[in-house]
């Protein structure tokens, strides 16, 4: 047998093996997929009649609806840097904001570390402040390469937070900003910065307890 014949037989053999494996793979996948209805669902289906199921579904849909918050909601999209003031499905204000930068700050020679993310999840408005004062935390000084002050008065900053602030826990606020040109960018230390006009509208519309969803 010459070389060419041997080579072609090897190739045909390999192709055959590959095709067999392909066929086996496809068959197994189809069989696995055909078992779409798991045993528990099959039992459930056989036990109930269609009307019963439909009634149960309506009841469940109602239960989910009852869990939905009522009234004004604040939704914050940290990817788009947008805040939506919403009631039901109606959005009555959309504001461009600034959310957390995602940067990391480590204390030189220390053990403390901060990640400047805007926290995600469900929150509620816990405090409403007019002409808020920022009590600068340690990281604000460390970031600037300054010494952390011992006196409380050295931490007071009356200008940075704008005219209003809505606190939602753990020192996070929805507040005003001096850096309006950076609205729409992720530049903050975790708080949500809003432009003056939008901030005023949000402050007026949202009461204590208003739900905030950050995603």
């Amino acid at each position, binding site marked *: 047998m010459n070389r060419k014949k041997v080579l072609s037989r090897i190739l045909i053999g390999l192709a055959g093996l590959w095709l067999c494996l392909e066929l086996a793979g496809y068959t197994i996948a189809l069989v696995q997929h055909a078992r779409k209805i798991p045993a528990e669902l099959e039992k459930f289906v056989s036990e109930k*009649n269609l009307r019963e199921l439909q009634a*149960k579904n309506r009841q469940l849909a109602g239960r989910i609806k009852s869990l939905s918050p009522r009234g004004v909601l604040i939704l914050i999209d940290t990817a788009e840097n947008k805040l939506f003031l919403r009631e039901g499905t109606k959005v009555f204000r959309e504001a461009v904001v600034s959310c957390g*930068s995602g940067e990391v700050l480590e204390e030189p020679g220390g053990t403390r570390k901060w990640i400047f993310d805007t926290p*995600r999840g469900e929150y509620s408005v816990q405090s409403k402040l007019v002409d808020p004062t920022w009590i600068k935390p340690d990281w604000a000084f460390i970031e600037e390469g300054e010494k952390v002050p011992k006196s409380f008065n050295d931490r007071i900053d009356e200008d940075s937070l704008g005219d209003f602030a809505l606190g939602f826990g753990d020192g996070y606020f929805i507040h005003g900003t001096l850096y309006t040109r950076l609205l729409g960018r992720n530049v903050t230390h975790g708080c949500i910065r809003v432009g003056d006009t939008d901030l005023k509208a949000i402050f007026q519309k949202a009461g204590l307890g208003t739900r905030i969803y950050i*995603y």
Partner: protein
Amino acid sequence: MLKKAAGGIALFLWIVGIPLAAADEKTKAAEMNQLLEAEAALAKLPASYFIVDLGEKTVFLKARGIVLKKWELRRTKFWGKAVSIRALQLLRKSAWFPPKRKNIVPGKDEQGNIDLGILEVKDMPSVYSLKFAGRIKISVRPRSRKFFLFFQKVGSAFRRYTYLPLKTVWLALKKKSFSEIELVMAGDKDSKALFWAFMEGQNCIIYQPSK
């Protein structure tokens, strides 16, 4: 005679068809029931969750039953074992080029160049996979641009006609199974935004209704 035969056949099909259609309706109602049961359990928690609806070709980000954001999908492909309709926890997001956080150098004035350190949605990967328990994997990618379409088609064909069948056989020999879902997003922006929104540990329901 012919008319009678046709009438008989029609009657037979109608009689046979009624219970079949009812069974189908029942399966759909049962699947919907499972989805609603799973969602009702998640909606009780103070955390957002995802619903990947392969029937509607939409990904929903929800909290307490309300839709926070949604993404339309261009295409979906499914391979392997059907996924049961229940809450699944995202174990890991993985990408070839995952985003990296940058460290702030204390006291260093970046002269207004904020782009040096911040992490934004544009820095997220657009091709990645989401891994769940039970060997369930969702691969996400945007719709290919014309230039890359050829390469993407070759890659996709290799994956579908070689890699996945071989993986199926290999795992079947070890008495294991897996599920792989491919989601094709409308564009880069959507793909990156989904990566941003999905958090490890977050709950997700994959809903694949019967056709």
